[in-house]
Protein backbone atom coordinates (compact mmCIF):
# COMPACT_ATOMS: atom_id res chain seq x y z
CA UNK A 1 0.00 0.00 0.00
CA UNK A 2 1.40 3.37 -1.00
CA UNK A 3 1.60 6.12 1.57
CA UNK A 4 0.00 9.54 1.33
CA UNK A 5 3.30 11.26 0.57
CA UNK A 6 4.25 8.76 -2.14
CA UNK A 7 0.91 9.23 -3.92
CA UNK A 8 0.99 12.99 -3.46
CA UNK A 9 4.47 13.20 -4.97
CA UNK A 10 3.46 11.00 -7.91
CA UNK A 11 0.34 13.09 -8.63
CA UNK A 12 2.30 16.36 -8.43
CA UNK A 13 4.87 14.96 -10.82
CA UNK A 14 2.21 13.93 -13.34
CA UNK A 15 0.44 17.27 -13.18
CA UNK A 16 3.75 19.13 -13.50
CA UNK A 17 4.68 17.00 -16.51
CA UNK A 18 1.42 17.67 -18.36
CA UNK A 19 1.21 21.35 -17.55
CA UNK A 20 4.89 22.07 -18.19
CA UNK A 21 5.52 23.40 -14.70
CA UNK A 22 7.95 22.38 -11.98
CA UNK A 23 6.75 20.08 -9.20
CA UNK A 24 7.20 22.83 -6.56
CA UNK A 25 4.85 25.12 -8.43
CA UNK A 26 1.93 22.68 -8.23
CA UNK A 27 -0.64 23.67 -5.62
CA UNK A 28 -1.80 20.47 -3.91
CA UNK A 29 -5.04 22.11 -2.77
CA UNK A 30 -6.18 23.48 -6.15
CA UNK A 31 -8.75 21.70 -8.26
CA UNK A 32 -7.31 19.63 -11.14
CA UNK A 33 -9.16 21.66 -13.76
CA UNK A 34 -7.82 24.91 -12.24
CA UNK A 35 -4.33 23.41 -12.48
CA UNK A 36 -4.90 23.05 -16.21
CA UNK A 37 -6.05 19.44 -16.58
CA UNK A 38 -8.96 18.51 -18.81
CA UNK A 39 -11.14 15.39 -18.89
CA UNK A 40 -8.72 13.55 -21.20
CA UNK A 41 -5.89 14.22 -18.71
CA UNK A 42 -8.12 13.01 -15.88
CA UNK A 43 -8.62 9.55 -17.41
CA UNK A 44 -4.92 9.33 -18.26
CA UNK A 45 -4.14 10.17 -14.64
CA UNK A 46 -6.28 7.29 -13.40
CA UNK A 47 -4.45 4.86 -15.70
CA UNK A 48 -1.10 5.96 -14.26
CA UNK A 49 -2.50 5.76 -10.75
CA UNK A 50 -3.77 2.20 -11.20
CA UNK A 51 -0.28 1.05 -12.09
CA UNK A 52 1.20 3.06 -9.24
CA UNK A 53 -1.08 1.77 -6.47
CA UNK A 54 -1.48 -1.65 -8.09
CA UNK A 55 -5.26 -1.96 -8.02
CA UNK A 56 -8.21 -1.02 -10.24
CA UNK A 57 -9.68 2.43 -9.63
CA UNK A 58 -12.82 4.26 -10.67
CA UNK A 59 -12.52 6.86 -13.41
CA UNK A 60 -14.72 9.19 -11.37
CA UNK A 61 -12.07 9.68 -8.64
CA UNK A 62 -10.64 12.99 -9.97
CA UNK A 63 -14.19 14.40 -9.75
CA UNK A 64 -15.05 12.96 -6.33
CA UNK A 65 -11.65 14.00 -4.94
CA UNK A 66 -10.74 16.96 -7.13
CA UNK A 67 -7.39 18.04 -5.66
CA UNK A 68 -4.03 16.29 -5.32
CA UNK A 69 -4.34 16.41 -1.55
CA UNK A 70 -7.86 14.95 -1.43
CA UNK A 71 -7.15 12.26 -4.00
CA UNK A 72 -3.89 11.18 -2.35
CA UNK A 73 -5.59 11.13 1.06
CA UNK A 74 -8.51 8.99 -0.12
CA UNK A 75 -6.21 6.51 -1.89
CA UNK A 76 -3.84 6.24 1.07
CA UNK A 77 -6.78 5.66 3.43
CA UNK A 78 -8.45 3.20 1.07
CA UNK A 79 -11.63 5.38 0.94
CA UNK A 80 -11.55 5.40 -2.83
CA UNK A 81 -11.98 1.62 -3.27
Amino acid at each position, binding site marked *: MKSYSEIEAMLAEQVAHWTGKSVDEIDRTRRFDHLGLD*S*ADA*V*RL*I*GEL*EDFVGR*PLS*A*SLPYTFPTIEQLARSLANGDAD
Partner: protein
Amino acid sequence: MTETYLGASPAAIRHHYDVGNEFWQIWLDPTMSYSCAMWEGPDDDLERAQRRKLDYHVEQARAAGAKRVLDIGCGWGAQLLHLVGAHGVQHAVGLTLSDAQAQYLRAIAPGNVEVCVRGWNGYQPTEPFDAIISVGAFEHFARYGLSPEEHIEAYRRFFSACRSWLKPGGRLSLQTIAYGDIPRDRPLRDRFIVDHVFPESELPRLADIARATEMELEIEKVRNDRGDYVKTLRAWFDRLRARRADAVAVSSEELVERYERYLRMFAYSMELGAFTLLRLTMRRIDLPGRW
Protein backbone atom coordinates in the same frame (compact mmCIF):
# COMPACT_ATOMS: atom_id res chain seq x y z
CA MET B 1 -22.80 18.38 -50.52
CA THR B 2 -20.12 15.78 -51.15
CA GLU B 3 -20.81 12.22 -52.21
CA THR B 4 -22.42 10.05 -49.53
CA TYR B 5 -19.81 8.39 -47.36
CA LEU B 6 -19.97 4.62 -47.54
CA GLY B 7 -17.82 3.45 -44.65
CA ALA B 8 -14.16 3.12 -43.73
CA SER B 9 -11.80 1.78 -46.39
CA PRO B 10 -10.56 -1.83 -46.35
CA ALA B 11 -7.05 -0.50 -45.59
CA ALA B 12 -8.31 1.30 -42.49
CA ILE B 13 -10.12 -1.80 -41.24
CA ARG B 14 -7.06 -3.97 -41.83
CA HIS B 15 -4.91 -1.49 -39.93
CA HIS B 16 -6.79 -2.46 -36.80
CA TYR B 17 -7.82 -6.08 -37.28
CA ASP B 18 -4.98 -7.66 -39.24
CA VAL B 19 -2.49 -7.56 -36.38
CA GLY B 20 -2.34 -11.36 -36.51
CA ASN B 21 -4.90 -13.78 -35.13
CA GLU B 22 -2.50 -15.14 -32.49
CA PHE B 23 -2.42 -11.76 -30.78
CA TRP B 24 -6.20 -11.67 -30.37
CA GLN B 25 -6.41 -15.31 -29.28
CA ILE B 26 -4.27 -14.44 -26.27
CA TRP B 27 -6.71 -12.05 -24.67
CA LEU B 28 -10.13 -12.53 -26.26
CA ASP B 29 -12.36 -15.34 -24.95
CA PRO B 30 -12.45 -18.72 -26.80
CA THR B 31 -15.37 -17.58 -29.02
CA MET B 32 -13.10 -14.75 -30.30
CA SER B 33 -15.80 -12.16 -29.68
CA TYR B 34 -14.31 -8.69 -29.99
CA SER B 35 -17.34 -6.72 -28.84
CA CYS B 36 -19.16 -5.96 -25.63
CA ALA B 37 -20.41 -9.02 -23.71
CA MET B 38 -23.60 -9.28 -21.62
CA TRP B 39 -22.87 -9.85 -17.94
CA GLU B 40 -25.07 -11.34 -15.28
CA GLY B 41 -24.36 -11.79 -11.59
CA PRO B 42 -21.08 -11.50 -9.66
CA ASP B 43 -19.67 -14.94 -10.57
CA ASP B 44 -19.95 -14.53 -14.32
CA ASP B 45 -16.95 -14.98 -16.61
CA LEU B 46 -16.03 -13.51 -19.98
CA GLU B 47 -16.86 -16.53 -22.12
CA ARG B 48 -20.29 -17.04 -20.55
CA ALA B 49 -21.01 -13.32 -20.90
CA GLN B 50 -20.00 -13.39 -24.58
CA ARG B 51 -22.23 -16.40 -25.27
CA ARG B 52 -25.13 -14.61 -23.54
CA LYS B 53 -24.57 -11.68 -25.92
CA LEU B 54 -24.63 -14.02 -28.94
CA ASP B 55 -27.93 -15.51 -27.70
CA TYR B 56 -29.37 -12.05 -27.11
CA HIS B 57 -28.88 -11.02 -30.74
CA VAL B 58 -30.36 -14.30 -32.01
CA GLU B 59 -33.40 -13.70 -29.86
CA GLN B 60 -33.77 -10.02 -30.80
CA ALA B 61 -33.40 -10.71 -34.52
CA ARG B 62 -35.78 -13.73 -34.22
CA ALA B 63 -33.07 -15.69 -35.99
CA ALA B 64 -33.47 -19.10 -34.31
CA GLY B 65 -34.37 -21.77 -36.86
CA ALA B 66 -34.30 -19.26 -39.71
CA LYS B 67 -33.43 -20.18 -43.25
CA ARG B 68 -31.00 -17.33 -43.97
CA VAL B 69 -29.27 -14.90 -41.60
CA LEU B 70 -26.77 -12.15 -42.45
CA ASP B 71 -24.01 -10.97 -40.09
CA ILE B 72 -22.55 -7.60 -41.13
CA GLY B 73 -19.04 -7.24 -39.72
CA CYS B 74 -18.75 -10.89 -38.71
CA GLY B 75 -15.25 -10.71 -37.19
CA TRP B 76 -13.86 -14.16 -36.44
CA GLY B 77 -17.34 -15.65 -36.80
CA ALA B 78 -18.53 -16.15 -33.21
CA GLN B 79 -22.09 -15.12 -34.11
CA LEU B 80 -22.19 -17.10 -37.38
CA LEU B 81 -20.95 -20.30 -35.73
CA HIS B 82 -23.43 -19.80 -32.90
CA LEU B 83 -26.32 -19.30 -35.35
CA VAL B 84 -25.74 -22.54 -37.23
CA GLY B 85 -24.36 -24.52 -34.29
CA ALA B 86 -26.73 -23.67 -31.45
CA HIS B 87 -29.80 -22.16 -33.12
CA GLY B 88 -30.47 -24.34 -36.19
CA VAL B 89 -30.00 -21.60 -38.79
CA GLN B 90 -29.77 -23.22 -42.23
CA HIS B 91 -27.50 -20.74 -43.95
CA ALA B 92 -25.49 -17.90 -42.41
CA VAL B 93 -23.63 -15.26 -44.42
CA GLY B 94 -20.92 -13.07 -42.91
CA LEU B 95 -19.37 -9.90 -44.32
CA THR B 96 -15.97 -8.70 -43.17
CA LEU B 97 -13.31 -6.41 -44.63
CA SER B 98 -10.48 -8.27 -42.91
CA ASP B 99 -8.62 -11.00 -44.83
CA ALA B 100 -7.15 -12.43 -41.64
CA GLN B 101 -10.62 -12.83 -40.11
CA ALA B 102 -12.01 -14.45 -43.26
CA GLN B 103 -9.12 -16.91 -43.50
CA TYR B 104 -9.46 -17.87 -39.86
CA LEU B 105 -13.19 -18.39 -40.19
CA ARG B 106 -13.08 -20.35 -43.47
CA ALA B 107 -10.71 -22.82 -41.84
CA ILE B 108 -13.09 -23.63 -38.98
CA ALA B 109 -16.60 -22.97 -40.33
CA PRO B 110 -19.05 -25.67 -41.51
CA GLY B 111 -20.36 -25.66 -45.09
CA ASN B 112 -23.49 -23.64 -44.35
CA VAL B 113 -21.45 -20.62 -43.24
CA GLU B 114 -20.48 -18.32 -46.10
CA VAL B 115 -17.84 -15.61 -45.62
CA CYS B 116 -17.46 -12.65 -48.00
CA VAL B 117 -14.52 -10.25 -47.78
CA ARG B 118 -16.43 -7.08 -48.60
CA GLY B 119 -18.31 -4.20 -47.05
CA TRP B 120 -22.07 -3.78 -46.91
CA ASN B 121 -22.16 -1.16 -49.63
CA GLY B 122 -23.20 -2.59 -52.97
CA TYR B 123 -23.77 -6.07 -51.55
CA GLN B 124 -26.52 -7.88 -53.44
CA PRO B 125 -27.67 -11.14 -51.84
CA THR B 126 -29.10 -13.80 -54.11
CA GLU B 127 -32.07 -14.20 -51.76
CA PRO B 128 -33.48 -12.06 -48.95
CA PHE B 129 -32.68 -12.74 -45.29
CA ASP B 130 -34.97 -13.63 -42.39
CA ALA B 131 -32.78 -11.68 -39.97
CA ILE B 132 -29.70 -9.45 -39.86
CA ILE B 133 -27.26 -9.08 -36.98
CA SER B 134 -24.55 -6.44 -36.90
CA VAL B 135 -22.28 -6.08 -33.90
CA GLY B 136 -19.36 -3.68 -33.74
CA ALA B 137 -19.40 -2.63 -37.40
CA PHE B 138 -21.65 0.44 -37.38
CA GLU B 139 -18.82 2.39 -35.69
CA HIS B 140 -16.99 2.33 -39.01
CA PHE B 141 -19.83 3.68 -41.14
CA ALA B 142 -19.23 7.43 -40.77
CA ARG B 143 -16.00 9.33 -41.26
CA TYR B 144 -14.43 11.96 -39.08
CA GLY B 145 -15.18 15.41 -40.47
CA LEU B 146 -18.57 14.71 -42.06
CA SER B 147 -21.35 17.18 -41.35
CA PRO B 148 -24.25 15.97 -39.17
CA GLU B 149 -26.44 15.69 -42.29
CA GLU B 150 -23.81 13.63 -44.12
CA HIS B 151 -23.48 11.43 -41.07
CA ILE B 152 -27.19 10.69 -41.02
CA GLU B 153 -27.24 10.15 -44.78
CA ALA B 154 -24.47 7.53 -44.52
CA TYR B 155 -26.43 5.69 -41.82
CA ARG B 156 -29.66 5.99 -43.75
CA ARG B 157 -28.05 4.30 -46.76
CA PHE B 158 -27.09 1.42 -44.51
CA PHE B 159 -30.55 1.04 -42.97
CA SER B 160 -32.12 1.30 -46.40
CA ALA B 161 -29.88 -1.52 -47.63
CA CYS B 162 -30.78 -3.64 -44.57
CA ARG B 163 -34.45 -3.09 -45.27
CA SER B 164 -34.04 -4.20 -48.87
CA TRP B 165 -32.20 -7.38 -47.82
CA LEU B 166 -34.78 -8.37 -45.20
CA LYS B 167 -37.95 -10.34 -45.80
CA PRO B 168 -41.15 -8.46 -44.83
CA GLY B 169 -41.32 -8.17 -41.03
CA GLY B 170 -37.65 -9.18 -40.69
CA ARG B 171 -35.49 -7.72 -37.94
CA LEU B 172 -32.06 -6.18 -37.54
CA SER B 173 -30.29 -6.53 -34.20
CA LEU B 174 -27.61 -3.84 -34.03
CA GLN B 175 -24.92 -3.29 -31.42
CA THR B 176 -22.69 -0.24 -31.57
CA ILE B 177 -20.55 2.05 -29.49
CA ALA B 178 -21.84 5.62 -29.50
CA TYR B 179 -20.95 9.01 -28.12
CA GLY B 180 -22.79 9.70 -24.90
CA ASP B 181 -22.04 12.52 -22.50
CA ILE B 182 -19.86 14.48 -24.92
CA PRO B 183 -21.08 17.83 -26.22
CA ARG B 184 -21.72 17.98 -29.96
CA ASP B 185 -20.14 21.41 -30.31
CA ARG B 186 -16.87 20.51 -28.58
CA PRO B 187 -14.71 18.05 -30.48
CA LEU B 188 -12.71 15.44 -28.58
CA ARG B 189 -9.33 16.85 -27.65
CA ASP B 190 -7.84 13.42 -27.21
CA ARG B 191 -8.91 11.30 -30.16
CA PHE B 192 -6.62 8.44 -29.18
CA ILE B 193 -9.41 5.92 -28.54
CA VAL B 194 -11.47 6.72 -31.60
CA ASP B 195 -8.43 6.88 -33.88
CA HIS B 196 -6.87 3.76 -32.46
CA VAL B 197 -9.86 1.47 -32.94
CA PHE B 198 -11.77 3.23 -35.65
CA PRO B 199 -9.30 4.93 -38.02
CA GLU B 200 -11.04 7.25 -40.50
CA SER B 201 -14.23 6.77 -38.50
CA GLU B 202 -16.52 8.76 -36.24
CA LEU B 203 -18.87 7.29 -33.68
CA PRO B 204 -22.64 7.70 -33.95
CA ARG B 205 -25.06 9.30 -31.51
CA LEU B 206 -28.38 7.75 -30.59
CA ALA B 207 -30.36 10.65 -32.04
CA ASP B 208 -28.57 10.33 -35.40
CA ILE B 209 -29.27 6.61 -35.55
CA ALA B 210 -32.93 7.24 -34.77
CA ARG B 211 -33.12 9.94 -37.42
CA ALA B 212 -31.50 7.71 -40.02
CA THR B 213 -33.99 4.88 -39.51
CA GLU B 214 -37.00 7.07 -40.35
CA MET B 215 -39.08 5.47 -43.10
CA GLU B 216 -36.56 2.61 -43.33
CA LEU B 217 -36.84 0.55 -40.16
CA GLU B 218 -38.89 0.83 -36.99
CA ILE B 219 -36.94 0.90 -33.72
CA GLU B 220 -38.47 -1.71 -31.46
CA LYS B 221 -36.08 -1.63 -28.55
CA VAL B 222 -33.05 0.33 -27.31
CA ARG B 223 -30.70 -0.66 -24.51
CA ASN B 224 -27.79 1.30 -23.14
CA ASP B 225 -25.42 -1.30 -21.71
CA ARG B 226 -22.27 0.70 -21.08
CA GLY B 227 -21.85 -1.02 -17.70
CA ASP B 228 -21.40 -4.27 -19.63
CA TYR B 229 -18.61 -2.68 -21.62
CA VAL B 230 -16.75 -1.51 -18.52
CA LYS B 231 -16.65 -5.15 -17.36
CA THR B 232 -15.71 -6.49 -20.80
CA LEU B 233 -12.86 -4.01 -21.28
CA ARG B 234 -11.57 -4.69 -17.78
CA ALA B 235 -11.68 -8.43 -18.44
CA TRP B 236 -9.73 -8.01 -21.70
CA PHE B 237 -7.19 -5.78 -19.98
CA ASP B 238 -6.65 -8.28 -17.15
CA ARG B 239 -6.22 -11.14 -19.62
CA LEU B 240 -3.75 -9.17 -21.72
CA ARG B 241 -1.76 -8.20 -18.61
CA ALA B 242 -1.77 -11.79 -17.35
CA ARG B 243 -0.25 -13.04 -20.62
CA ARG B 244 1.71 -9.94 -21.52
CA ALA B 245 4.95 -11.71 -22.45
CA ASP B 246 3.13 -14.02 -24.88
CA ALA B 247 1.36 -11.05 -26.45
CA VAL B 248 4.66 -9.18 -26.94
CA ALA B 249 6.22 -12.31 -28.47
CA VAL B 250 3.59 -12.47 -31.25
CA SER B 251 3.42 -8.70 -31.81
CA SER B 252 5.60 -6.00 -30.25
CA GLU B 253 6.11 -4.11 -27.00
CA GLU B 254 4.80 -0.95 -28.66
CA LEU B 255 1.59 -2.64 -29.82
CA VAL B 256 0.84 -4.28 -26.48
CA GLU B 257 1.42 -0.97 -24.72
CA ARG B 258 -0.98 0.74 -27.12
CA TYR B 259 -3.67 -1.86 -26.51
CA GLU B 260 -3.25 -1.71 -22.73
CA ARG B 261 -3.65 2.03 -22.87
CA TYR B 262 -6.63 1.85 -25.17
CA LEU B 263 -8.48 -0.87 -23.23
CA ARG B 264 -8.14 1.03 -20.00
CA MET B 265 -8.99 4.44 -21.43
CA PHE B 266 -12.00 2.94 -23.13
CA ALA B 267 -13.18 1.37 -19.87
CA TYR B 268 -12.92 4.77 -18.15
CA SER B 269 -14.82 6.50 -20.96
CA MET B 270 -17.62 3.94 -20.69
CA GLU B 271 -17.65 4.24 -16.90
CA LEU B 272 -17.99 8.03 -17.12
CA GLY B 273 -20.66 7.80 -19.83
CA ALA B 274 -18.64 9.73 -22.42
CA PHE B 275 -19.11 6.65 -24.61
CA THR B 276 -22.07 4.30 -24.43
CA LEU B 277 -22.90 0.86 -25.76
CA LEU B 278 -26.19 0.67 -27.62
CA ARG B 279 -28.17 -2.43 -28.46
CA LEU B 280 -31.02 -1.70 -30.84
CA THR B 281 -33.67 -3.98 -32.27
CA MET B 282 -35.23 -2.77 -35.52
CA ARG B 283 -37.99 -4.14 -37.65
CA ARG B 284 -39.12 -3.75 -41.21
CA ILE B 285 -42.69 -2.49 -41.29
CA ASP B 286 -44.84 -3.79 -44.09
CA LEU B 287 -48.45 -2.82 -44.51
CA PRO B 288 -50.05 -5.05 -47.09
CA GLY B 289 -51.70 -2.90 -49.71
CA ARG B 290 -50.29 0.31 -48.20
CA TRP B 291 -51.24 3.36 -50.27
